[in-house]
């Protein structure tokens, strides 16, 4: 008998195989933010500026710490840069509540796949999956609740760092050198364009990432610059051959002081 279109082959799983999102959907518990009408009368906190740069050893991802709701500062110590898995990082901009939940789902998804299949997804596979997650948010985006992530990681097979940026419809773009998103993303990009070289060392690239956030904070009220009094500094992470690691706050503080011209 020739199987008709739509017939299940015996090999196709009736329950989701390695996908955690599909598992949540099959149980009816995937995170959803359904509502009707415009989002004008809700003003959830938004995460602002994040950026990522490539350098010969890998990638650096950085984000400021401010979340805003309209013209108010909602939170001063928000984390916008997260580990996605051992070899990649995800940074978020847009509606913070949704973005943080999507990040948690993305992290679980990657680990779930890794445990079940006993291998990591390829870097491109991870980026494609994140693009699908952004695409699913399109109805929300049309209602005004936009989430735009950045994704960066070390491609173990190719031996180099790679960057991916996304748009609101789930478009995925390979970035060659640097990318920034969020309200101060444009200002950060303008700064990066003037100083970026493709032979930067890790120390230089860390300084540049922090300086770009400082530059964005100068022009954009929604971007929080380093707060020397309260000791709030940007989150900066590196993904290189050895994997994901967070940069020590003391080191970020030194970069921030020199970028702000403080001693």
């Amino acid at each position: 008998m020739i199987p008709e279109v739509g017939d299940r082959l015996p090999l196709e799983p009736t329950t989701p195989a390695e996908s955690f999102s599909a598992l949540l959907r099959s149980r009816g518990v995937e995170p959803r933010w359904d509502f009707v009408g415009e989002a004008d009368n809700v003003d959830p906190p938004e995460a602002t500026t994040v950026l990522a740069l490539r350098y010969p050893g890998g990638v650096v991802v950085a984000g400021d710490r401010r979340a805003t709701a309209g013209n108010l500062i909602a939170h001063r110590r928000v984390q916008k840069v997260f580990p996605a898995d051992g070899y990649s990082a995800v940074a978020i901009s847009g509606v913070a509540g949704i973005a943080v939940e999507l990040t948690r789902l993305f992290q679980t998804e990657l680990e779930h796949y890794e445990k079940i299949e006993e291998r990591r997804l390829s870097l491109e596979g991870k980026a494609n999956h994140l693009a699908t997650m952004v695409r699913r948010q399109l109805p929300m985006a049309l209602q005004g609740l936009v989430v735009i992530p950045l994704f960066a990681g070390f491609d173990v097979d190719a031996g180099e760092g790679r960057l991916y940026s996304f748009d609101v419809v789930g478009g995925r773009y390979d970035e060659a050198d640097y990318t920034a998103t969020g309200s101060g993303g444009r200002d950060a990009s303008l700064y990066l364009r003037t100083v970026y070289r493709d032979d930067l060392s890790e120390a230089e690239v860390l300084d540049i990432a922090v300086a770009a956030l400082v530059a964005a904070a100068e022009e954009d009220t929604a971007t929080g610059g380093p707060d020397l009094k309260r000791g709030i500094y940007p989150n900066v992470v590196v993904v290189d051959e050895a994997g994901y690691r967070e940069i020590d706050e003391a080191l970020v503080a030194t970069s921030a002081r020199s970028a702000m011209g403080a001693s």
Partner: protein
Amino acid sequence: MTTPFYVPPEQLMKDRAEYARKGIARGKSIVAVEYDNGILVLGENASGTLHKISEIYDRIAFAGVGKYNEFEQLRIGGIRRADLTGYAYSRSDVTAKGLANAYAQALGNIFTQEVKPYEVALMVAEVGASDDDNRIFKVTYDGTLFADRRFSAIGGEEDALLASLDDSYEDGAPLATVLGWAKAACSSLTEDGVAAGEWEAAVVDRTNGRRAFRRLDPAEIDSA
């Protein structure tokens, strides 16, 4: 219509248990031993790709003996359960006890209700913040759940392995020493011993950070 023969329930359970035990005895056994920073799980496995020992969650390792497709299905079920719980609540809410109980329920139901029982025995090992918080659970084909301390074994040669480990075990030994005991226990089961490179071993180690599970590479296993 033919009248079914009456089979007394005792006989039925005995037959099923014997069937399952025979299936399990055909494979190699697995041992788990606590060391100063965690728990070592080790077994003989000639295949480098089809694992019997694997990661379930941050601090929890899984090991299965018997029929591969059956314990593989239980492994995946365990990962799903753990990831769902951890995502819905908190990562710290996923415990070996909850997981072992779920396995016991599942295997118990299969043993009594399915056409044939699963020919598997499982181990769930969780490393805690201190030695007292370590947990090693063992689930047999009929859903019986055991909680072991310090060391444990599953498979056809369980008793011999436990006797051997009982002789060598001491609290607070380093990994290299414990690896030696575990290998010696498994090797003592056969006359020829086990060839280098035919081991599979992993640890859940509290010094490894959030994901405590780590596979030991063959060089590390052979050096002990």
